[in-house]
Each structure stands twice: as structure tokens, then as C-alpha cells.
């Protein structure tokens, strides 16, 4: 059973970003072939002014998937809150992916600013998807201020490294077994996405791995299949690892070959 995101059930666990594609036509193709359930859109403040980005947003809305606006590139609480308000007005949705960046080289979330911005936005009726780390205490604080979904990173944004801290992510999954969790950022290959889903995460969010591939649409389809495979595997209750071999046929009584 897939956990619901603020009461909404998604058709699958793939969320795809909309930046950095060679063209909007290729972007649309990637969405179609991946079957992604959600499109994230980052709002540049300047495009919000006078709705100058209208053409692009209308194109995103025509994709026919659920839109999750994103406060990408915001470095302060105030900036993130302002961007969230602009996004709500433009896209007519309470959903907001909240990014408050605290460090430039790893684009590490500023977890203190994040909790503060999440509190302000939750109180204001937003349904916040916070981009966080695997830190259990930060996760707890985010839930306390009203978040009902968490988006821990797999690895730094755009790095393509996959799941960097497996132990931490497993702990997070085990600790918050009722909370929908989305692996956001750092995925480079479909196998990374499958692994996240196998660990029991509810969705993955990625952008660069598809947009910067030589054939974005083909890579998008590969991610769509990987997410599906991982999701099925998680439902199928995978076997446990063990240290010794376990023969799949009985050994005792078997005829010896001479």
C-alpha cells in the first residue's frame, strides 16, 4: 500500500523535475514516456513577477500531471516563504516543495531555516514537502511543525551519486514508518531509484539524471520502469540477506557423482 501525500494517492512513485531539458518538447516527451505522477517546477522570482513565465507554466500544466512547485535556490526563510506564496497563486495548489539552501558547494539544506519556513507555511495552510537530510531529529521537528511528508536527500543535488547514506535512510524509514518519504536529489541511475523504492520509500524525485542524459526521454522511461520494479519488489517482501549459502534444493540424500 502506498502512503498518501496529504490525502492524495499517486498513481506511482516517480516525481520528475522540469529544469535543464534541451527543449520543452523533449521535456514533454520525457514525462509521457516515464509516466511520472508529479512534476516539480522551480520558480525564479523574476518569472513570477507579472507572470512572465506564463508560457512555460502553461506547458507544464498541459502535461496533465500533478504540479509540485519548488522554492529551489532559496537561501533564506523569507525568500522561500515569498516564493511559496507566489507558487500557490500561480499554480493554484497548496503543495510546496520547500528548499532552503544553507551551503553552496553541496547545496546542503539549512535545516534550521527549513524548520522555521515549514512552520510558517504550514500555519498558513500550505502542504509542505521539505527537502531535508536523513537526520532523525530534524525529521521529527519538521513533523512537529506540521509537515506530513519528508523528502530526504539521496546525495547532493545534481551529483548523481545515488543513495549515499544507506544506514541513515533505512533508519529514517524504520523510525517514521507511517510518514510518506520521498528520496529527493542525488540520483543518477535507474538502479538508484529502484533501490530507494526497495527500501520502502514512497517515491523518488529527480531531474538532472533525466534532463542531462543524452536521450532524456529514454532515460525517463528507464526511471519509470525502475521505480515500478522497486515498488513491486518492496510489496513482494524481499528475502533477508544471510552470511552463508542456502541451497535451494535439499542436499541430504542427494546422489554423489564419482
Amino acid at each position: 500500500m502506498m502512503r498518501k501525500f496529504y490525502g492524495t494517492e499517486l498513481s506511482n512513485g516517480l516525481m520528475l523535475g522540469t529544469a535543464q531539458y534541451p527543449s520543452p518538447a523533449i521535456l514533454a516527451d520525457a514525462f509521457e514516456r516515464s509516466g511520472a505522477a508529479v512534476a516539480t517546477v522551480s520558480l525564479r522570482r523574476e518569472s513570477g513577477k507579472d507572470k512572465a513565465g506564463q508560457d512555460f507554466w502553461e506547458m507544464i500544466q498541459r502535461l496533465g500531471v500533478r504540479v509540485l512547485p519548488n522554492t529551489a535556490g532559496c537561501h533564506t526563510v523569507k525568500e522561500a516563504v515569498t516564493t511559496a506564496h507566489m507558487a500557490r497563486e500561480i499554480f493554484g495548489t497548496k503543495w510546496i516543495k520547500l528548499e532552503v539552501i544553507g551551503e553552496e558547494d553541496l547545496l546542503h539544506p539549512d535545516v534550521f531555516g527549513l524548520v522555521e519556513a515549514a512552520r510558517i507555511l504550514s500555519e498558513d495552510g500550505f502542504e509542505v514537502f521539505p527537502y531535508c537530510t536523513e537526520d532523525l531529529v530534524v525529521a521529527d521537528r519538521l513533523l512537529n511543525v506540521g509537515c506530513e511528508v519528508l523528502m530526504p536527500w539521496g546525495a547532493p543535488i545534481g551529483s548523481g551519486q545515488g543513495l549515499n547514506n544507506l544506514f541513515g535512510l533505512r533508519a529514517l524509514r524504520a523510525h517514521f514508518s507511517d510518514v510518506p518519504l520521498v528520496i529527493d536529489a542525488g540520483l543518477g541511475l535507474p538502479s538508484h531509484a529502484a533501490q530507494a523504492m526497495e527500501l520502502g520509500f514512497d517515491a523518488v524525485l529527480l531531474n538532472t539524471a533525466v534532463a542531462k542524459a543524452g536521450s532524456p526521454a529514454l532515460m525517463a522511461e528507464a526511471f519509470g520502469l525502475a521505480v515500478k520494479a522497486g515498488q513491486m519488489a518492496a510489496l513482494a517482501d524481499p528475502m533477508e540477506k544471510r552470511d552463508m549459502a542456502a541451497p535451494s534444493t535439499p542436499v541430504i540424500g542427494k546422489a554423489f557423482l564419482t
Partner: protein
Amino acid sequence: MSLKISIIGGGVAGLCVARELVDRGADITLYERGDGVGKHACSWWAGGMLAPYCEGETAEDIVVQLGLKAADWWQKSVKKGIKSGQKGAEKAQKVQKNGTLVVSLARDHADLERFTRRTRCFTRVGADEIGRLEPDLKDRFSKGLFFESEAHLSPREVMTTLRELLVFEGVKFIRDEVEPELIAKDGLTIDCRGLAAKDSLADLRGVKGEMLMLSCLDVSISRPIRLLHPRIPIYIVPRGDGIYMLGATMIESSGGKYATARSVLELLSAAYALNPAFGEAEILEIGVDSRPAYPDNIPRLTRDGNIISINGLYRHGFLLAPAMAQMVAAHIFENKSLEMKHEYSA
């Protein structure tokens, strides 16, 4: 009697179409929004790189193909201006065929590897070769790519020369904002208005670009340099006399009269990374405009009765306008289809 044709729009597309049609003996009237070549056309802010192979990193193959002969076309067109003594033609003569150099900072070498895989017709260069090509970048980059056959030009000078030559050859330039439907009642009309034609071309959108013009006598760079970066690929194009054009952002937005502080910071820090002496550069201009683009970022030629429209040249105005203009001429005079085809390379 020669065929009368009207062109609406005096940017790079309109001027190239006029050139091709005049060469075929047409009698041209060109309607332009502003007074001559100027800021009202987004080509005023162009980089002027004729770099089909580099563009191939993200552009479709047809863009590469159609752009291959652009440098020769511009060289030929400008030379005509020099022969007929158009002022400024000497400066505009500089359709420079000395290649493009692509570099990245060590932390972004993965982006250079990707660029290597996605493009062709380059040689890999190391620190020594980079220093030989551009002495002022010596010891600053350990790896790069050199696209020897690419070229660049100075858009403003080249467009001015082309326009003056067309005036000399009898093209009537009229300063007026006109509706194609009205003009087309009197005959064949080529709509080259760019984003101004948005109301009649539903798919067209604007992609905002910001650029800077710098004056820096302390740095001498002779060819376009592309500095790869995961978010904002930046290029610097020498205009001669210590003037450099630094561009350009790509933002999905059709509005905005002003550049943002963030964009200017990012552009300047890239220049600074190329050579810290750019820190002393004087900022001559901060330019902003929106480029017209279709969803696939490939230009289109369409015909509706008496109106032929050329649009969606995106960031490839100088690279693609010559081929587009030749297609229009071949359509009018040889009845060829307006469909974009690979064999049409100027």
C-alpha cells in the same frame, strides 16, 4: 518587372531574408519597428557565435546541419559591403574563423566529459595547448576542447553593414509597426517579427537572456570561450579593442526589462574565474531581451496565404537565419517546400 515582396521585421532574420531576395532580383520593402539596427531587435544582444558543433551539445542535429555554412554566408555578405564602400564594413569584416575553446574548472570536469561525448569536430587540448591558443588563460585550465572550424562575428557591426548595403541596393526601409494581414493584401509578405508575432503563433514563447558588455584592456582573448558549469554555461566573445560580450542566461520567461543581480553576479564570477583581471573590467552595458522559441527550440517556416513567417530562431539567430532565408528564397523562386530539411545547408 521584378517581384514586389514586403518584409516585416528588421532583425537578423529580416535582414538575411532581404539579402537573399534582393540577390534574386526582388523589389523589397522592409518594415522595421525602430530606427535602423538597434536595441528593439533581440539580435542586437546576440553573442554572434557561429558555433554549430558546440550548440550540438543540446540542440537537435538539424540546428547543427543548418548552421554549418553560416560563417561563409556572413563572410560573403559582409565582403560585399566592403567592396561597395559601406562605412563600418571594415570593422564588420571580422567574421573571425579562429574556433571556439571550451573549458571547465576542475570541479566541473564531469561536465566537460559530457560535452565531449555530445559534440564532434573538436580536438582535446591540455594546459600547454590552451596556453598557446589563449596566452591569458595559461595555467588556469588543465583540460579543454578546441573546435577549430567555428567562427564568431560582431552582431551590431555586421547587421549595420548588411542594412546599409541593402539600402544602397535599393531596399526601401520604412519605420512602422504594421500588421502582416494588411500588408499581405498587396502581395507576398515575410513576417520576421520574432516575439512580436506571438499573438498569431500560438506555440511561440520567450526565453529570457541576460548579457554584459565589458571593457577590459588587461585581458586579451581572441576567440569565444565557453566555460562549462552545471547550471549556467557561460561564454565570452571578444569584440575587439578590449571589448567582451559576456552571456548568457536562459530563463523560461518572456518578460523582464531588467537583469537580476543574481544573473549579473553569476556572469561576472564566471569571467573572474576565466581570468581574475576581469575584476577590473568596466561594465559598459547590461542587456536583457527575450528570444522567440518554439517548444522544440527549432525554428519554423510556415505559410498562410500571402504570409510566410520565419520564427523561433531561439539562441541561434546568426547561426540559422542565413539558411532560413535561403529556404524562403528557394520557396518563392523555385517553388520548393518550406519544410526544414537537412540538405539545406546554405
